[in-house]
């Protein structure tokens, strides 16, 4: 199987590098929601343009936005679950 984002060979949907970034995205959403009161989609858009966000985190955010998981946080949770 190939990583949906970068094409690296992997045993799950995302390679280890993008999986690490997606876990960080999921983990930090709570902090954003609490302090900025943003929706999951707004959060992903913010991450895409944030200068301090890592390139893989931006790629995962972009992937989620274009693959239809933008409106539900469960989308990422689902992706992460599948990788376990």
């Amino acid at each position, binding site marked *: 199987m190939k990583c949906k984002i970068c094409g690296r060979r992997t045993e799950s949907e995302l390679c280890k590098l993008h999986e690490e*970034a997606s876990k960080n995205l999921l983990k930090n959403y709570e*902090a954003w929601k*609490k*302090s*900025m009161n943003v929706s999951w989609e707004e959060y992903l858009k913010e991450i895409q343009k944030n200068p301090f*966000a*890592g390139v*893989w*985190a931006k790629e995962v955010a972009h992937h989620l936005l274009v693959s239809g998981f933008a409106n539900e946080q469960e989308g990422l949770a689902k992706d992460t679950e599948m990788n376990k």
Partner: protein
Amino acid sequence: MEGRNVLILCEKPTAAERVAKALDEGGNPQKREIGRVPHYVAGRDGKRLVVVAALGHLYTVAPSVKDRNVFPVFDFQWVPRYEVERDARETQIWIEVISKLSQEAQEYILATDYDIEGATLGYTILKYACGGKEKEAKRMKFSTLTTGELEESYRQLSDHIEFPTVEAGTCRHFLDAMYGINLSRAMTVAAKQWSGRYAVLSTGRVQGPTLKFLVSRERRISSFVPTPYWGIEAKVEINGSLYEVEYERDVIESRDEAQVVVNECSRKKGRVTEIEVRKFLQNPPVPFDLGALQAEAYGLFKYMPRRTADIAERLYLEALISYPRTSSQKLPPTIGYRAILESLSHEPRYEKLSAELLRLRELIPKEGEKHDPAHPSIYPTGNLPERTLSEPERRLWDLVVRRFMAVFGEPALKQGVKASITVNGHHFFIRGRQTLKEGWIVFYRPFIRSEEVVLPPLEEGQEIEFKEVLREDKFTKPPPRYNPSSLLRKMENEGIGTKATRAGIIDTLYNRGYVSGERAVVSELGLDIIDILNKHCPEVVSVDFTRDLEESMERIQSGNEKMENVLSKAVNRLTPVLEELKKHEDTVGQDLSEAVRKARMQQRIVGDCPVCGTGKLMILFSRRTGKRFIGCTSFFKGICKASYPLPQKGSVKPAERICRTCGSSMIRFKMQSKRPWTFCINPSCPSKEGRR
């Protein structure tokens, strides 16, 4: 000049000239040449001294099996470099000349650098080029190439060369070859078997763990997700001037909370509730070891560690500074502090500074913890330049001179002031920093980077007006990238590599394309190499394993371990690793080939496609004519037809910048023996109008 012939072997031609001049009784040795190899004939105490230099190492460790597709190989031996290295042909004539001169000699003296490499290269030349003279050779030990120290060193010759050091050096060469050659061969062969294409892939005993540090940091940076927080930026007015003040909390978790602080403090009057004045002494810095000099030169002048080491080496060969490849932070009194300062006082810019130190009754340097049994820390010899130094040489020499002076200076007396201001229950601080007595700073002033902040007179209860209170929107930041200097420091702290090899290993990581840029960015290839090695042989990128070997080599040098034991331990640990790599050759080969293919593709990408906006512009080859051009990644799919012409001869690669005139990507073009030329890919760019 009749009597016994003594062959003195130095490391570099400049050193040979200095040694010959210092030892010749008339100070004027005869320069002779055989082939293109210079040597000097000097006379001293009725003996004829023939001083000849090597060109660094003339011998290297090579495997007995020359076929690059065969591994594992554990049978290594010393061989002349010209036999195995294409760019070392020049060493053949040097070996022949040294061999010829040695036949005419009755005594042998080794005068190479007094360290592990100097001893090892001298040993191999004495053993192989001079026909087994390593046991009878005597040793000159010195830390500077000044006449006085060289004469003293000749008078106090050691009876033999330092064999434990040679054993440790030999062991290091054998281990590096064993790891580097076997692992690199295993990777290269696996990739070639899979893809049928040859690619230079390498790792090594120190290179692997060093790349692993970089990869680990890269992963943290690239997967970093920032979180928002808020801060308060405030300015107060005191006696008509504005001063910045710090809010009591660096991090405020919510925007609303930060806004409350702004609303409650803006345009309000606060009171000074407490003033803390703290006087403290700032000790002088310690003398430079090589790592500290490289770090300081990078911080001040942005010189890469390798460049600093090279400049320092030149200054040493000119007898301006002591031997730079040292890890010592000690300055023994035997170097003659006063004599050095007196000599330096002849240079106008150091005249007053030297005089200030010479007035002291006793000169006591501030020393660091680190000790090197072979050499003291880096210090100026007191000699003044005999030629005009280049700007980098002058800067580095000045840095060494001033640091040497600073270590004898008195501690600086500093004062820190911290006033607390309370407004509406919120606490702010204003801080000042001031130097009351400069002490050692006088000597090191051009290189001091801290700023003074002088506060106006304040007293408790004083009313202060808050002129400006703003909410700052902030984000947490990823860890900083390594730069060549911080990476060198990391290697030093982790105990891997040596002071002589670390800068070279960093260079190799850049040359292999694993890392790029001043702020070290790891390439996809670098990430993949570590991923593959971690998966199949984690031991070879383990810091603990490398450090363990380094410690074993230190024990050899101190006479507490035998080389054979260390080599045999290494073979036992490397054999299963190589077997594992061989067993999974297909998977490893596929992973590596993909990594190489991706890296090659990446190297061809010029920039974003301005036509479709989604593809990338890259160097492509026409399927019909084979000619190269720049086109969109969707060109062959027929989706985007963006294309730009390219010259068909010479090499082209992305310049990684955009044209200032039209904003198109630029490429770097180079014809053989011509200067490279960087130009915009857009044929209609207005910048090209003059050329049409």
